[in-house]
């Protein structure tokens, strides 16, 4: 590859990316002649180049440039050619070097020769490991059927979900269980019900004038992290004369709360009520965008359906007394006058945005909360408008070849899923990851023979985590693709270790955010350190080996590909043929080379108001009254809707069910015994759960409490005094499912009825800097769900706290 300097990326980035230039006073002359790379090399004796790739410390998909000296990666910077992160990169991205060079990585394929979890590993060849797994799979398929295998997966970026899933589909298991239900799935579901767009929303932060964020901590773990952080700077000083007002709603005084203009310390789980009260004021005072509502909304006014049945509209619902600011103030602890003022500001400062994330959506009432929040965007006409929400367009990649399904596969795929997704139990969710252990134990709907873990670690990341140990240890065969000896991997029979993201071919299609397409390359910046292998290559080898043994055609969908580089070239051909965006070339080879050099293909700008794409509900409008939700629930209700609603633990009845409304959150633990809400959170330094073994991040863990290397529990100082707890005391935090020991941190930002703990600590496995450090929150979080969506209610656990 031709050596290039970081400077070249600015030139290569091309038009439309004004980020860095905007602050400059214009270029001034520079008198000296630039040294060529070859000249510099001759002077220093160091072979040095910058390689474009894509970060994977979170799903944000930030483009990076890695400084590689004599084959070693020594510094990571943001890639200025990307309109996503615009040359910047967050602390997690910066710390990627310690992820790549982690001395505790798995160094080759492993087979467990002793008891599970005994670390009695034998390092074997790739051929042997793959043959071993293929033989097991053949035996299971023959004996009990392919549906008895579960493929649990987490951070699938770019092609990986399809690519890995293609084998498991052709093998014949319906149990492709992603981790969205322990994450943020409530929000995509709410978007689907109201707008038809079944994904996260993009937000035009850059052009908005007012932000209401319900539990979405822009400055911590919300994604894409670096993009959000940049947008913060732009909202503050990016438009001369205009400073976007940011109102942050969260029971926790986070960094975002501290930096926001106003913090509303809401009672946990009541965000939906607050959103409804804001809607109440906006509608009552007629401050809503009447034109948008008339042209692009359905179910705002009362209406009559085709059968002549009269239905309540959202306007009537929101104007009910129970959603008045005075009543909602009692639910949320936000004073009525504040609600009225915020509602007026939000409706009269255009464009305005209502956004929500973790705090409002990862609740037992998460879908309805998220619908209520999104309804505020519709009321002020911020759906697919500048300064409002956006959908995300993807790159025109070559479509995937379809897997070949034999009879065994067809029968397997027709079986019910292990997590009962899209059934009467969870009618809306595509997966219910957190239910898998319980169903394995109950052998419902059938016995499981094998589980594969790709980029996921249920032994650490599900509520009431001991369930994972109980259940998975009963499964006869466990396989992990992880490059790290995390809790799940440590208990597997076979480990097929992946490269880290800085050593492999991979791609990233941007997480919904900027709207216009953005496709970035992840190419090896250094040679692989160990005998690891790209999981994408491994799965193709496994499919071929399996076919050889079983006489099947599971590898047919992989065409003639040998490596992930081949896969990406196949996918890229479609983008080259589209001849648009920042890279256009005569030949495919030329296009490919440019992509590797620049690191990102992107096609700005975003075109607002393409309603046929942005609003794809049955009515083609924003549905205040969700016909999709009504149809889905009726499909499973068997004629008795009220019984079914009771089964789904929904308290509303009648038309209100199908509209944004407030459902009281449910809790685990008697308030008299467990008086505090447990609020757990991700700090920005967590790398979303896979970075615990990163000393640079551990040493700056909690900037708001100035703590590092250990966990803590934040307590209101008055509450602590009442309990006889002083700052730094060792305390037990106990819930109905367990207790953990940590240190008390007296924190003025804490609500008196809540305690707060950060995630990511308390690993029982993993590397030397992660293991046995701090307390694992998931050992005390109880399992509660948004039954309808199959998503986890993460904030339902009550705890008590006492000195150790």
């Amino acid at each position, binding site marked *: 590859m031709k050596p290039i300097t*970081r*400077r070249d990326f600015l030139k290569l980035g091309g038009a439309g990316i004004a980020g*860095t230039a905007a*602050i*400059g*006073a214009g*270029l*001034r002359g*520079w008198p*000296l*002649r630039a*040294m060529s790379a070859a000249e*510099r090399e001759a002077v220093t004796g160091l072979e040095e180049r910058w390689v474009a790739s894509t970060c994977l410390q979170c799903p944000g998909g930030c483009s990076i440039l890695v400084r590689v*000296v*004599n084959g*070693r*990666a*020594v*510094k990571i*910077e*943001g890639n200025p050619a990307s309109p996503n992160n615009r040359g*910047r*990169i*967050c*602390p997690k*991205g*910066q710390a990627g*070097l*310690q992820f790549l060079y*982690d*001395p505790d*990585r798995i160094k080759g394929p492993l087979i467990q020769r002793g008891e599970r979890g005994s670390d009695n590993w034998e390092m074997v060849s790739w051929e042997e490991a793959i043959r071993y797994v293929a033989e097991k799979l053949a035996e299971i398929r023959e004996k009990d059927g392919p549906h008895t295998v579960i493929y649990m997966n987490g951070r699938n970026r770019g092609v990986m979900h399809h690519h890995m899933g293609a084998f498991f589909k052709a093998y014949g298991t319906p149990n492709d269980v992603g981790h969205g239900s322990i994450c943020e799935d409530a929000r995509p579901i709410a978007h689907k019900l109201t707008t038809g767009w079944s994904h996260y929303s993009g937000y035009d932060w850059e052009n908005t004038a007012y932000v209401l964020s319900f539990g979405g901590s822009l*400055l911590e773990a919300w994604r894409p992290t670096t993009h959000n952080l*940049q947008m913060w*700077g732009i909202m*503050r*000083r990016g438009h*001369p*004369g205009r*400073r976007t007002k940011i109102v942050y709603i969260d029971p926790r*005084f986070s*960094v975002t709360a*501290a*930096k926001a203009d106003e*913090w509303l*310390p809401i009672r946990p789980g009541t965000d939906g009520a607050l959103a409804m009260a804001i809607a109440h004021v906006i509608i009552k005072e007629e401050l809503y965008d009447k034109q948008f509502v008339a042209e692009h909304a359905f179910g705002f006014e009362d209406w009559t359906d085709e059968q002549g049945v009269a239905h309540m509209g959202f306007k009537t619902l929101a104007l009910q007394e129970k959603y008045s600011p005075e009543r909602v103030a009692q639910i949320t602890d936000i004073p009525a006058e504040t609600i009225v003022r915020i509602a007026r500001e939000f409706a009269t400062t255009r464009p305005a945005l209502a956004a929500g994330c973790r705090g409002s959506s990862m609740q037992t009432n998460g879908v309805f909360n998220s619908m209520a929040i999104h309804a505020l965007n519709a009321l002020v006409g911020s759906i697919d408008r500048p300064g409002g929400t956006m959908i995300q367009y993807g790159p025109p990649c070559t479509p995937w070849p379809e897997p070949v399904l034999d009879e065994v596969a067809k029968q397997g795929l027709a079986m019910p899923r292990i997590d009962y997704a899209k059934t009467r139990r969870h009618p809306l969710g595509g997966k219910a990851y957190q239910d898998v252990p319980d169903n394995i134990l109950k052998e419902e709907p059938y016995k499981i023979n094998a589980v594969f873990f790709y980029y996921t670690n249920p032994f650490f990341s599900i509520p009431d985590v001991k369930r994972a140990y109980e259940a998975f240890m009963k499964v006869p065969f466990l396989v992990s693709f992880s490059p790290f000896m995390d809790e799940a991997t440590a208990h597997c029979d076979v480990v097929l270790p992946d490269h880290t993201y800085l050593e492999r071919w991979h791609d990233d299609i941007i997480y919904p955010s900027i709207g216009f397409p953005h496709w970035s390359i992840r190419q090896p910046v250094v040679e692989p350190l160990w005998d690891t292998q790209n999981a994408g290559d491994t799965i193709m080898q496994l499919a071929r080996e399996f076919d050889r043994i079983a006489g099947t055609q599971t590898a047919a969908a992989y065409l003639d590909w040998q490596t992930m580089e081949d896969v990406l070239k196949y996918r890229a051909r479609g983008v080259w043929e589209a001849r648009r965006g920042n890279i256009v070339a005569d030949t495919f080879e030329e296009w490919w080379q440019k992509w590797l050099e620049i690191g990102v293909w992107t096609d700005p700008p975003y075109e607002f108001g393409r309603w046929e794409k942005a609003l794809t509900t049955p009515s083609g409008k924003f549905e205040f009254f969700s016909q999709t939700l009504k149809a889905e629930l009726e499909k499973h209700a068997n004629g008795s809707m009220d019984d079914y609603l009771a089964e789904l633990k929904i308290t509303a009845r009648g038309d209100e069910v199908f509209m944004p409304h407030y459902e009281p959150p449910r809790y685990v633990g008697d308030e008299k015994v467990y008086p505090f809400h447990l609020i757990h959170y991700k700090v*920005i330094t967590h790398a979303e759960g896979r970075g615990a073994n990163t000393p640079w*991040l551990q*040493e*700056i863990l909690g*900037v*708001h*409490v*100035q703590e*590092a*290397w250990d966990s803590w529990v934040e307590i209101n100082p008055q509450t602590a005094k009442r309990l006889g707890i002083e700052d730094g005391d060792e305390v037990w935090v106990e819930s109905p499912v367990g207790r953990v020991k940590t240190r008390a941190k007296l924190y*003025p930002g*804490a*609500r008196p009825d809540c305690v707060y703990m950060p995630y990511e600590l308390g690993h029982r496995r993993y590397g030397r*800097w992660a293991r046995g450090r701090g307390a694992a929150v998931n050992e005390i979080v109880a399992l509660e769900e948004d039954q309808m969506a199959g998503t986890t209610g993460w904030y339902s656990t009550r705890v008590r706290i006492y000195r150790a």
Partner: protein
Amino acid sequence: MPRWGMVIDLDKCTACQACTVACRAENNVSFAGLNGYRRGRAIFWNTVIGRVEGEFPEVQGIFIPMPCMHCDHPPCVKVCPVGATYQDEEGRVLQRYERCIGCRMCMQACPYNRRYFNWRVQEWPDTFALYRNPDPETQPRPKGVVEKCTFCVQRLRKAREEGRPIGSDYPDGVVPACVETCTGGARYFGDLDDPESIVSRLARSPRAFRLQEELGTEPKVYYLRPGQWEPET
């Protein structure tokens, strides 16, 4: 001769600490671990100070990123008995590690706590050694000396060798690692002696202030306080 300075806009700062990690990677600053951290032995050439104060629900949080202030009247230089710490002709306060005797007078004198003592040999266990920056100025400091932020001297030296512009005034200008990665775009670097440079213009903003200005140290790191837009003079 330029006089290098930095401006940090606290309205744009997100307290993300990318600056802190970028600095450690660029300048070969290792980590102290739990015990070292608790004993105050972790080294942060750049850090983000955070403080949350008040009584619920009336709470304020303040976060201040802190590199070395590179004072024009640096108290640390005055007290150094062996001339190990000095101000160079471009206004930077630097350290000659080979001359430092580890007396830590400079740490006492610095009103900003921006100097760190090497209590032990810095370690890069196992494969961590592979990511070390090979630039000569950044080679790990021995045990027993004081170290500090240099405004990334190695970057500026290389920029000159390679004929590249320096400072936030240029779209591709070379800047210290903390400025380059600053996620909120809060940091600016440039020549304070050039009245038209970005840093000079921002330093004249009504939002501008410096830490403990009353001490007369004349820091070359300026901060911009958060606040509404007002007509800039």
